[in-house]
Structure formats: C-alpha cells, structure tokens
C-alpha cells in the first residue's frame, strides 16, 4: 500500500474544519480515523462533542455483554480524549445504572461540560452523583430515568438554558428551586412526574413542555413565555382535588403570559383550566397568540367550552385553531342543551380577523359542537380551510352533521370545508 497518485487532500486543512468534519461523524468512525495515517492519529482526540448512540458497539442478544463492551468503549474514549468536552450524550438502551457512570460524570465536570444528555436503558434508575452540580458551565441538561437530588448548598446552574427531565425522581421542592435558581433558563421540559404541584418562576423562560400528573400548575413569574405545551393526566385523587379547588385555574396558569404565541393542551388540560370560578371576560389579550391546539375537549361540559371561547376571543391574531373532541365516544343526550349559552357568550361584534385554518377532529355531532362550528364559520372573515374529521363510531350522525353544516352561514367567501372520512 504505497502512495496513491495525488497530493493529500484533507490532512492539511485547518483543525477547525477537521474538527467540524469529525463532529459530524458517528463516534466510532471518528475514532477510526486515527489509523488512517500518521497525521490523523490524534486528530480525533480533541473533538468537543461525544455522542454515544445505539450503534457504537455491535449489539447482540446478551445485554450484559453489550453493556460491558459499551462501558469499555466509553472508558477508552474518555481516557484518550484530550481537552475540553462541551457536549456529551449517551443514548443507549443497553446501558443501565452502573458505577462507571459516576466516574464519567466526575470526569466531565472537570472538563468544562456544557451539554449533558443521559438517556439510559430501562431498569434501575441511575442516581446522579453530586459532582454534576459542580458543572458551572452547563447550558443544557437532559436526563432520562434518573434520580436527582441537589445538595442543600446548591446555588443553581448559572448558565443553564435548557432543562429536560423525563422520568426523573426528584422532590417537588427541589424541582421548584432548581427551576427558579437557574436565571437564564429558557426551555423547560418535564415529563412523567407523579402528582406534582408545580409553581414555575423563571423570568427568562420561553418554552414550556409539561407532561404528567399535575395536581396544580401555576405560572407565577414567566413573562417571556412564548410556547406552552401541556399534557395533563388524571388520577382519582387529583380529580377529587380538582372538585374542591376554588381558585381560577385559568388565571393562575395563563394569567401572566402576555407574549404567548402557541398554546397546546392535551388530555385533561382544558378540564384543568375550566376548574374554578369563571373569570368573566378576560382583561388579558394574547396579542401574539397565533396557534391554539386543544385536544380532548369535552363539548358536553359547558365550562370547558367556555374556556375555549375565552381563549379564542382574547386572541385577536389567532391564525390556526385545532380542537379535538374527547369526552365519551358515544354522545349521551342527557339534558337539553342550553343553546342560549351561545347567544349569551359570543358577542356578535367579535370577529376572528386572522383565523385562517381550523381543524376539528373526533367530532361527534353533538349540538354544542355544531353551534361551535357555526360560530367559527360566522366570525372568520378570512378563513381559508376548515377541516372536520368525524369520530369514527358515529356513522349515522355523520349525514346529519353534513346537513347542518351546509346550512351554516360563512363569513369568508374563500372558506373550504373539508369533511374527512376514513
């Protein structure tokens, strides 16, 4: 194997370019460049991003074998590496809690780690060592299936901008203080927490993603919040707790977010917002709110419908609306629906001047749904598309729905109503 015809194309490029190339390779390919030639022997040593994914070591059926070779690989990697490590990510389901991970975290804490992602396998949850809290330069922390226990003297991550905790065991006080003592926090994502009562104070927070069983949610100091996405699950005791609550949840949650641009609510979110006293006509206007997506809204609960209406009417610049119906699948005609409600609550002068796209799914054809559609069609002068997807269990009432739809007045001449059938 001698010299191939031609000069060396790549070895003399500046180190920043070589590093940029090596960073975009999977880690095993990057390490393998060390045997290309003498110049390439140590080029990979100083890359600042190490991402251990599922393909780092060959997999086989025996999990312990793979785990062992993975641990060996990471040990070698860290031992040979020179220089700061800015990003370290492990996303490998074979790796479970083992003592070596503590040592790696310690090593990283001494090497200017800025972004740390630990996504280990299912199994025993890894207990994060306290040396993590010494990582002063941390800007992004993402943990899956871990136990987090900040020490009492912990003052916060001063540079942390993004915090993602997914299935993490942490005490409620600790999580609240963690959030509030990270002054630069911009993005927060908490998933699979159990019965958490959370008050969020984060003056720089922009993106909020919550998923789990929340007993109580309160956004106390989040003026810059731009994007909210909440999926609230319900258990029996939380449902009980809801019945007794008298605070206006709507206000508690959405009272302090004037810059909101996008709101997404899943499962019991709308129900949660509906609890408490009716705020009346809201003093708030969400002038930047352009997208509202609410799923599993029950059109048989007047309070939930009210929540939706309040949101819509307080958002003059709303462009996109997605509502998904989600009470019981078979509509039960119990009381005669109070259709007066619509005349009362919808001021006739309220037009949704910017609404362009409406998407309604899982519609059953109950009277309140039809009234809602009627209201939307009548108040949206620039509506372009309304797509309706009926619930698949109610075949017979689909025809009824269509007949009613056709009758409704449309404020927008270009409105297309698309009735989607499976």
């Amino acid at each position: 194997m001698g010299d191939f015809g031609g000069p060396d194309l790549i070895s003399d490029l500046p180190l920043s370019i070589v590093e940029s190339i090596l960073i975009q390779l999977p880690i095993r390919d990057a390490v393998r460049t060390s045997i290309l030639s003498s110049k390439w022997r140590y080029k990979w040593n100083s890359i600042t991003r190490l991402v251990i994914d599922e393909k780092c070591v060959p997999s086989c059926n025996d999990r312990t074998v793979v785990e062992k070779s993975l641990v060996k690989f990471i040990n070698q990697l860290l031992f040979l590496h020179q220089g700061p490590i800015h990003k370290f990510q492990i996303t490998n389901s074979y790796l479970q809690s083992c003592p070596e991970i503590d040592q790696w975290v310690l090593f990283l804490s001494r090497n200017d780690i800025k972004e740390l992602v630990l996504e280990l396998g299912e199994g025993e949850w890894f207990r994060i060592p306290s040396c993590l809290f010494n990582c002063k330069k941390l800007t992004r922390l993402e943990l899956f299936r871990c136990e987090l226990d900040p020490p009492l003297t912990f003052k916060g991550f001063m540079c942390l901008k993004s915090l993602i905790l997914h299935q993490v065991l942490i005490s409620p006080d600790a999580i609240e203080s963690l959030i509030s003592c990270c002054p630069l926090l911009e993005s927060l994502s908490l998933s699979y927490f159990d019965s958490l009562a959370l008050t969020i104070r984060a003056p720089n927070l922009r993106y909020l993603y919550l998923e789990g069983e929340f007993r109580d949610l309160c956004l106390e100091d989040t003026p810059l919040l731009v994007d909210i996405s909440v999926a609230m699950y319900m258990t029996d005791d939380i449902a009980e707790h809801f019945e007794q609550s008298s605070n206006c949840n709507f206000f508690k949650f959405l009272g302090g977010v004037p810059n909101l641009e996008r709101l997404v609510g899943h499962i019991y979110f709308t129900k949660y917002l509906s609890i408490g006293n009716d705020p009346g006509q809201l003093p708030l206007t969400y002038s930047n709110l352009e997208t509202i997506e609410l799923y599993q809204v029950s059109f048989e609960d007047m309070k939930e419908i009210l929540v939706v209406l309040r949101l819509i009417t307080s958002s003059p610049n709303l462009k996109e609306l997605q509502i998904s119906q989600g009470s019981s699948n078979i509509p039960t005609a119990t009381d005669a629906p109070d259709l007066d409600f619509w005349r009362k609550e919808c001021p006739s002068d309220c037009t949704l001047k910017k609404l362009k796209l409406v998407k309604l799914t899982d519609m059953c054809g109950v009277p309140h749904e039809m009234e809602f559609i009627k209201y939307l069609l009548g108040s949206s002068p620039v509506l372009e598309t309304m797509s309706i997807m009926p619930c698949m269990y109610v075949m017979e009432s689909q025809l009824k729905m269509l007949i009613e739809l056709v009758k409704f007045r449309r404020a927008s001449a270009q409105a297309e109503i698309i009735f989607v059938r499976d």
Partner: protein
Amino acid sequence: MVSTMMENPRTAWSRDVDLLRCNDATEILIMKVGDVMVRNLARGAHKEANKHLAQWTVLGNPKMIKAYVWLQTSDGSIQQVEQEIAMFCPLICHEIIQKGMGSSKNYAICLPQRVSPAMLSLILDYCRFHQVPGRSNKERKSFDEKFIRMDTKRLCELTSAADSLQLKPLVDLTSRALARIIEGKTPEEIREIFHLPDDLTEEEKLEPLKNTTDDPRIRLLNRLYAKKRKELKERERLKNVEVEEEHVDERSVDDLLSFINGNDRDPKEIKTSKNRKKNRRKKDQQKNSFLKEASELDKETNGHNIRCQSAEADTIGETSNIRHTEDDTFSHKETNGHNIRCQSADADTIGETSNIRYTEDDTFAHKVEFDDGDMDDEIDPALQEKIDREVADFARRLNSDWPMRMKEFLSSSGQERTSMHFPTNGNSFLRRHDYPFLLSRFLSSGVDDISSCCAGTGLRMEMTPYKPIQMT
C-alpha cells in the same frame, strides 16, 4: 429560533446616532451598520446580515448605482464582482468597510491564497443564491444539496477556500458533505479517496483494528495481523535466546555479599563490565529491581521510570496510542526507551489484568522492549551516575538492617527456611528483605548452586559455589 443576540442592533445604532451630533452622521452610520453586518455574517446569521446589507447599501449609495468590487485571486488575476454578492463573505465585507479596499482595479482586495479562481466562482454562485432574502428554507436546502455534488478534491478545496473567507455556512455545508463521504468506509477506502499516505509503521499497524461493525474483512485483517505479530515475536525470541545463553552474570557471590555488607568495592565495576546490548538489557532489569527498591525507599523514581498501567491497560492496548502484542511485551509509542509509564495501582490488579505478567515461574518477566532504533550501547553517563547513587543508597540501607534480619532468619525453624516461598508481593520485584531470604536459604540448606534456589524468585544468576562468610 429565538435570537440569541443580547441587544437588537437596530436599536443600538439608532441610539448611537441620536447621540451623535456631527456632520458625518451618515459616515458613522455606514460604519456602524457595516460593523454589525460583518459580525452577523461571521456568526452565520444571514437574515440579520441581509437586513443590514440593504440598509448599508442604501446609506452608502443613495443613487443605487450597481456597485462592483475588485477581487484578486491567488493566481494574480483580478475580476469584478457585484458588491452585494461579494459582501456576503465576511472577509471581503471587512476589507471593504474597514479598509476601504476594492473600489478600483489598483486597490483590488487580495483574497487569501487558498482561493483560486475556480473556487471563487463556486463561492460566488453560493453567495448569489443565498444572498437573496426571499428564499424559503426548503429552496435553500435543495440548492445546497445540488451545490455540493462535486468530486472530493474540489470539495476539499472549496472547504479550504470558504474557511479562509470566513464563510461559515458554506464551511458547515462542505464539512458535512465530507463527513458523509468518510462515514462507514474502511480505512483503505478513505485513504484512497483522500490520497492519504499509509505511513504508520509496521508495528503500529499491527495493532488490531476496532472491528465495531463486525466487518468480515476487518476480522480477516486482524487475524492476519495476529499471525504476523506472532512471527515477529518468534523471530525476536530466537534472537533473545541466543544472546541469553551467552549472558552470564559473572559477579561472584563475594562481590554481591560484599556489596551488601558495604565494602568499599566500587559498585560501578559491577555494572560497567559488559557492554553488549542484550546484556545491558538484563542488567537494566536487575537495575530495575534495585531501583524499584530504591524507589520504594526513596519514593521517587528517576532514570528508568517504570510505572505500570492499571487494569485498563488491556483495554487501552486496543487503541492507537499503546500497542500490546500477544506476548505481553509492552511499550508506549512515544517512549524514548527510557520512559515507560504506568501507574502503580494495586500490585494484585496489575498482576492479574495488565499486560505485564508477573508470575513467579517466569524469567524476569518484565521484558521491556526498548525501541532499539534510537538506543545506543553506551549508557548515558549522567544516567549511570544516578543509577550508581541509588544503588549505593540501597546498599547502605540494606546493610543497616542486615545483622538483625540475619538473626531472625537463622533462628526461625528449618522448615520455614526450606519451604520458603518468596513473598514477591505479586510483582516479583524483590523487596528489601527478600535478598537476605535468598542468601539465608542457600546458606542454611547448603546448596551448591544458587541458581536452583533462585528459580523461584525470577532472578537468574549463575554464581560460583559459595564460600562461607563471616557473620557478626
């Protein structure tokens, strides 16, 4: 994406303009807008940069005449390029705004050496497309995909040229393309594509490749390498065996004993007699044992520094830095022959897991393979002195305890003495009081040939039959 800039530049400079009350407000405005634009370009924030480019162009060119700049490439040729396109490159932008170059042929901007005319035209194509503000992300992406379809040589040159012009988005694009080329290929393929010289040494290449993809070709290669390594080992062993037969430690027992007893006999004489390479190797090993003891006493090793690697050694062995061959000889690529580093961990773990096997039955198993290339037969005199000093030190200390220890040994039961197993501490470096064990054993058991009782220690010596010595 949320802008990460701390302050909106527009408000910044408009505030500055308010503060300025001079006739050259426009000039200063131009400079300020230009500064912000250069900074944005350097960061790759093209949307913001484009906004300022428009302002800048209007400010500096109220009549909106299409402006051109003059650029000189590496081959000396000068060409005229539309200003707004050229300004997309931070380096050119900087030259125009801060140095005022490029306005005429005589003052053409000299582009860096890595920018050839062909590369410049490619870069300008890129700039021409991306500079237009109204394009969607999808359009830009598909343009990029088509743009980088070129042969590898041009791609490397383009990366280099874009880097010298500080055009970060193009550098990212091209380096991503190069990464895609490298990904998943075997080293031979990569070397062929990029014309890399295959200049790692034979031995360096003989380390097993990490076969993470379980490629059958790599497995075969590793097997061939293993065979080759075995052959090399065989050859070396043959060489060693020949020489070892010649090697005889001709120091008499008297010498050794007197040395321990602190006679004036110059210890140097013991060392300098033989100068053969292999001989010295043996001596080095013995020296090592003395030194190790000295070091244990002094807690410092210099000269021949030997520190053993911890249990990770076998894993490290697979990597590029340290080779280990099947026979567990061990050396670090970077050594100069005298400096072999390992950490002193638990002796037991070293004994078990590391590449250096310390078993009592082996010949002094720490066969250190020095890089013969750069070693000569003469021992460095400075080094020699150091060694001598340490040896003398050791002798002194050993001597001081000798009477007491001898009493101990002689008074202990005979059984103990005969069935003495040498406490080699797992690493067969003789500890300080091991040497007396050795002596006492042959003293008490009347063995003629010391070599047989030395067999257990791993220390090979052939000595003349002993003579009784006077003990105090």
